């Protein structure tokens, strides 16, 4: 393979990462700030350096894009679509069907500010929609959150790996800032993984046929299928939590942040450590499953204060509080509308928290 360009926007890096992971087909509809993904891929279809990438189509709508993707995913091919908030809402119907039909599929949401049309600035306000299964019928998806351009390039391979291992849609939730940010991109060549696709609908062989349907008219059948999905989601929650720790060992306050906020938090940890404040960062890489086991570890090792930094009115803070289960103080620092919190605001919030009385709730009391 030829080397990738070495200075790229996040969106471009994600497109290259998907190609490196063996992408076969991309379907998308233009929407700012995600359009560099289809624009990058449109120029790569049929190119010899990406021999697996055979299908690119600009769809007539977000609905058409996700359903074209469903069709291609049903053949066992690696399929991706990308969008931003308003388009992500439109795709939810298809994601629900893909979850029910157990199709491996990669959906990218470059989160912009909302609700409604909002603006083109960064937000993380689609966190709930992404992590709770944004469509109808009680499914879950895996949600990955990069925090750098190199990680935008790396995560598609992990996303496809998880999508095929568990036969489920995987969402990469990034934001307008990371999508547009340009960084150096040293990405090593990796050979695409191969997965079992014997379930795919590519023609019946004798008595063996493949029916990919979400319809289970008999109540007992739907009950069985829903339980099967729930068991799969429980296994994913047990085994696929991913996160990164920065200086959490002796921290009095642990910041919890993903995506662009993790970068702000990382910088804040550095400057506050330099001033003698014992501050750390927990960065969820999987927003779903949420790395609640890591929060639990931190609580058990004595952390009593979490400050959740996010670009919405407070969404991930609920997951941190659920994981802390009353054993630690959990506060949020939020910003919305496309703005980012200032380093001064982050510093002030950390200092206010660091000098507050240690929460009296002990782990044993909660466990009892």
């Amino acid at each position, binding site marked *: 393979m030829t080397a990738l360009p070495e200075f790229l926007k996040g969106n471009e890096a994600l497109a290259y990462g998907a190609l490196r992971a063996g992408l*076969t*087909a991309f*379907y998308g509809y233009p929407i700012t700030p995600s359009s560099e993904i289809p624009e990058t891929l449109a120029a790569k279809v049929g190119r010899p350096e990406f021999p697996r990438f*055979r*299908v690119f*189509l600009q*769809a*007539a*709508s977000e*609905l*058409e894009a996700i*359903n*074209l*993707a*469903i*069709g*291609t*995913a*049903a*053949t066992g*091919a690696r*399929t991706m679509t990308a969008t931003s908030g308003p388009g992500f809402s439109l795709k939810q*119907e*298809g994601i629900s*069907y893909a979850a029910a*039909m157990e199709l491996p599929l990669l959906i990218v949401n470059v989160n912009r500010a909302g609700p409604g049309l909002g603006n083109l600035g960064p937000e993380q306000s689609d966190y709930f929609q992404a992590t709770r299964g944004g469509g109808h019928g009680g499914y879950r998806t895996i949600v990955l959150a990069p925090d750098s351009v190199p990680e935008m390039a790396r995560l598609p391979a992990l996303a496809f790996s998880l999508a095929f291992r568990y036969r489920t849609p995987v969402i990469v939730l990034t934001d307008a800032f990371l999508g547009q940010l340009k960084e150096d991109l040293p990405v090593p060549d990796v050979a695409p993984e191969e997965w079992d696709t014997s379930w795919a*609908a*590519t*023609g*019946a*062989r004798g008595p063996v*046929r*493949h*029916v*990919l*349907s*979400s*319809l289970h*008219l008999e109540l007992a059948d739907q009950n069985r299928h829903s339980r099967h999905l729930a068991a799969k989601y429980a296994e994913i929650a047990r085994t696929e939590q991913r996160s990164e720790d920065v200086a959490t060992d002796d921290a009095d306050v642990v910041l919890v942040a993903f995506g662009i906020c993790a970068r702000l938090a990382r910088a804040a940890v550095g400057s506050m450590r330099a001033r003698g404040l014992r501050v750390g960062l927990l960065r969820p890489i999987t927003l779903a499953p949420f790395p609640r086991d890591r929060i639990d570890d931190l609580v058990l090792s004595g952390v009593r204060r979490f400050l959740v930094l996010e670009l919405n009115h407070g969404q991930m803070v609920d997951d941190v509080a659920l994981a802390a289960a009353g054993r630690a103080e959990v506060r949020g620092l939020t910003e919305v509308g496309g703005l980012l919190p200032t380093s001064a605001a982050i510093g002030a919030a950390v200092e206010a928290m660091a000098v507050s009385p240690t929460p009296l709730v002990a782990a044993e009391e909660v466990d009892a």
Partner: protein
Amino acid sequence: MSAAVGYATKWGALPTLTGAPTHYCAGCEHGTLTRLLASAIEARQARERAVLVSSVGCSVLAHEYLNVDAVQAPHGRAPAVMAGIKRARPDLLVFGVQGDGDAVSIGLLELVNAANRGEPISIFLVNNAIYGMTGGQMAPTTPAGMVTTTTPNGRDVATTGRPFDATRLLLGLDGPAYLRRVFLPVAPTGSADVFNARGALDGEAAIRHAFEVQERGGFSFVEFVSTCWVNWKVSILESKRYAARVLAPLFPPGLYRDRFGVEAR
């Protein structure tokens, strides 16, 4: 819905039919179409490369009866799912059965854009002028004056629009290679209770031509004018007479486009 005799058992087994009893009502053309599809697939020896896309509506269980690989589509989205399969696997014979509500109302965007791009897929539209599965609501194809559960005084075209002619809409696009409309019900002959089954013969020929067009790289679309006596709230025989009297003039059967000349061969 009522239990019906399995077509495979009553009319002789075809390997492309599962033999499962269908949920289609007695007298419904969905059952006829299922049999015709199986026959046309076998005529092309295409069972092992056929992929059915099931839409939402009375066609939703087609994969229970057709013994081929199948993928289900959300309501109206079947043309997009078909195109996604075909683009990834051009070697497959990709087809779907859609109802009028599915294809012409909620899924019009997907139908029109797949047609305009000339996607090499075959779409079979069952136009029975009403929503069958949901219990008899007005469809885009409902004739003026027809009483449905949502037009209790008859369809008022002044406020709900005129019956939608999907075939002629697609004729306005350059993309489709094959457009045909078939009157599928048994047709009255003039003599009181004598009907002919010409529609089924036309229907099977149209399906075979549609598959031929797809495998030569073109978009094919066949609209089957059909009946729904249960939701029209008439007898089976009266539904056939109504279809001949009202629907056939509204949706004239015929060959609307045959770019590859497959019917001349």
